[in-house]
């Protein structure tokens, strides 16, 4: 039962990875790609780590730390990339 759940999480994560990484090859704007990357890299990776967590529950403290840092770092990197890649309009900073 646990194994099925864990496999399910990992498959969802992998589907997110492929779906979200695929638009990188297209010709859309950086910000549009950033939206799909946040699906792939944050949510997809979190699903995969959840799958791993179900498989080895005795290592939960480190995997929980991995989950939290995944969420925080990826989101902040998304913000920093969005901030840095857009032109300043009207004001400096």
């Amino acid at each position, binding site marked *: 039962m646990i194994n099925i759940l864990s496999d399910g999480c990992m498959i969802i994560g*992998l589907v997110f990875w492929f779906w979200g990484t695929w638009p990188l090859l297209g010709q859309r704007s950086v910000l549009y790609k950033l939206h799909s990357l946040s699906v792939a890299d944050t949510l997809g990776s979190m699903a995969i780590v959840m799958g791993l967590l179900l498989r080895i529950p005795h290592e939960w403290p480190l*995997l929980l730390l991995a989950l939290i*840092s995944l969420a925080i770092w990826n989101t902040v990197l998304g913000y920093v990339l969005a901030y840095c*890649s857009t032109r300043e309009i009207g004001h400096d900073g």
Partner: protein
Amino acid sequence: MTAVILAMIAALLIPMVEAFQDEDIWQRMLAFASIATKTSVMILAVSVLRDDWMIGVVGVLILSVGNAALMLLAHVIKRLNEVTEG
């Protein structure tokens, strides 16, 4: 588990191709950010596959130190662009 690792390697190829083919620096940064996350999650998956938690600790450490270098690089590139454009 092996199938999962193979699928992950396939997913890792996409941002690599993008990093090679696109000239725009921000598109490349996006690809690198994607590669960074994917490889560290792969390290975790490999540690479960080989049942060797020492590898897993390395993966968790990489994840928690995070993409700090990429953020710094993004700021440096932004500054450089501002300087060169006036």
